[in-house]
């Protein structure tokens, strides 16, 4: 059961990633793979702020390093205490993702670089930036307060301390349909679920405002919306920023839930997000905006459940990305095949002569 709760929680966090993917891939028809980097970036920024590490980008003893440190680090470091609050650290993860997406959008629109290449460039640059941010390839949050622990304390009360001053983990359980579930696990699931639901609702509201409908129209028919006075370039930049903001937030939540940040954790996430969106579309269709947004969320949770099921049945975790890729391939190709099959079948069934 704990594994199941874990899968739900993972699914909810993936839903934020899928929301980002939905915005770029579906609303703007913009194949943006910045997410592989901005996911880590959001997580890394959050982790570093929560741990309270001091930034040292380059060795300050070197000529270039002294300049970089003077410009960037000395501005950032004094504010670390302020941003160390878990809420602000999470917000910083969101903003970090937005900054990454903004860069991708600018590369594509202002410098007219192919959308896929723009994403690859930013993603590659982010790999270094993520290492710079964390100073090493992974960091642990240790016992520092996170959004998740804040939620747990709010619901379950402050944790008790042992003689040495360390917190004792609350392992109390509650029975749900015959299973013992740790309360703390349940609270973190509820907290993340609420946050994701709130953000999905906000997105739904946003895409029905004047500016939101203009964004949707930009992806649907850019010629038309330009003729109606909308700067489509700015819309796309705003869209990639928003999308990667959600992705950065997803990474930030993942880091706070799992307790560590790793520079590799974004690998294959875009395919997972895309798979979630596709599963969601298969579940609820694409008839209305609200349905598709809800579908993306349901799809992510279902995707994670299936993944944990397949893993528990004995598939080696190393093959997970291969299977995800094959799944997305099938999901992209099958609808076409099915449509073709449906077109040809009835003619044969009705006994009509086959065209020669």
């Amino acid at each position, binding site marked *: 059961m704990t594994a199941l709760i874990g899968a739900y929680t993972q699914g909810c966090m993936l839903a934020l990633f899928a929301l980002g993917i939905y915005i770029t891939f579906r609303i703007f028809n913009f194949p943006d793979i910045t997410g592989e980097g901005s996911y880590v970036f959001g997580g890394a920024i959050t982790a570093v702020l929560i741990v309270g590490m001091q930034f040292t980008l380059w060795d300050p003893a070197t000529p270039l390093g002294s300049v970089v440190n003077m410009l960037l680090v000395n501005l950032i470091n004094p504010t670390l205490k302020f941003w160390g609050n878990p809420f602000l650290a999470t917000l910083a993860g969101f903003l970090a993702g937005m900054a990454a997406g903004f860069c991708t959008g600018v590369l594509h629109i202002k410098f007219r670089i192919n959308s896929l290449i723009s994403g690859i460039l930013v993603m590659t640059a982010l790999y270094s930036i993520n290492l710079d941010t964390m100073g090493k390839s992974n960091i642990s949050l240790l016992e520092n307060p996170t959004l998740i622990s804040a939620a747990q304390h709010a619901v379950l009360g402050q944790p008790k301390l042992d003689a040495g001053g360390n917190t004792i983990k609350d392992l109390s359980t509650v029975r749900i349909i015959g299973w013992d579930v740790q309360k703390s696990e349940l609270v973190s699931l509820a907290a993340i679920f609420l946050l994701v639901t709130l953000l999905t609702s906000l997105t739904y509201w*946003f895409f*029905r*405002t*004047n*500016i*939101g*409908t*203009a964004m*949707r*129209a930009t992806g*649907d*028919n850019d*010629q*038309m*919306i*330009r*003729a*109606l*006075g*909308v*700067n*489509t370039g700015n819309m796309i930049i705003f869209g990639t920023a928003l999308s990667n903001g959600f992705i950065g937030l997803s990474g930030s939540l993942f880091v706070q839930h799992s307790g560590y940040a790793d520079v590799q954790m974004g690998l294959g996430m875009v395919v997972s997000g895309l798979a979630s969106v596709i599963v969601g579309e298969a579940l609820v269709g694409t008839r209305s905006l609200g349905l598709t947004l809800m579908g993306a969320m349901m799809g992510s949770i279902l995707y994670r459940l299936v993944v944990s099921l397949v893993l528990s049945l004995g598939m080696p975790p190393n093959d997970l990305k291969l299977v995800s890729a094959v799944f997305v391939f099938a999901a992209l190709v099958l609808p076409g095949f099915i449509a073709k099959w449906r077109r040809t079948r009835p003619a044969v069934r009705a006994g009509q002569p086959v065209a020669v």
Partner: protein
Amino acid sequence: MLKVSHVHKTFNPHTPNEVRALQGVNLDLGPGKFLIVLGGNGSGKSTMLNAVAGSFFVDEGTISIDGNDVTRWREDERAKLIGRVFQNPFSGTAPNMSIAENVALAALRGQPRGFGSALNRSMREEIRARVRGLNMGLEDRLENMIGSLSGGQRQALTLLMATWVKPKLLLLDEHTAALDPKTADKVIHLTENVISQGKLTALMVTHSMQQAVNLGDRIIMMHKGNIVRDFQGAEKKRLRVEDLLEQFEDIRRMEQLDESASEMLQENYI
């Protein structure tokens, strides 16, 4: 209202595919006038319309609309002044959004868009009322995706959208060319009503001589990136389809003469 001066545009300059689409076009269109632009394929009539709309920047010359020099304005900036209907019915509407949403987008043409709800109650009511005015029964299908509509319905809606906010200039780019004759008649009728009721300044590119004769107060004919004929006032009113065809034949003969003349010169002097 619209003033086009010495406008030049060359596509793919300095390549084998070089096309001199506009070669010093001059045009002055007064307010409330309805101009018909005729011309053969590649005569530059659509290019001129696109140059006015801002689809590209011109190489030389200036364009001004309602006293504003818009030569360096982007397409979306010019949309403050211009309403537009495209030749392709698919171009003027967003297929995966509802009729109501499409019209609501047009209701804010050229205005800043904020975080207000796109479809509030009063907007819905107004959309329903105005769509009912099209007499196409679309007012009961406002939540349907535009993609499910026919070409004629889409063009009628695009026309409604282009004129929802009264434009300083209405651009119609062969907007009935992709429709069947009956639907085309309907859309033309609608166009005429919209323009006369709103006293709009309009520029319509067309292939149809019949439309050219029946509509508008002025006809220009374009050829090789230039305006070669201009009929206004009483002269335009007298014009019949046969006269137009004759003019076309004239232009064609002139061109042949030009070519044979240049051949003769080449043979004699080179």
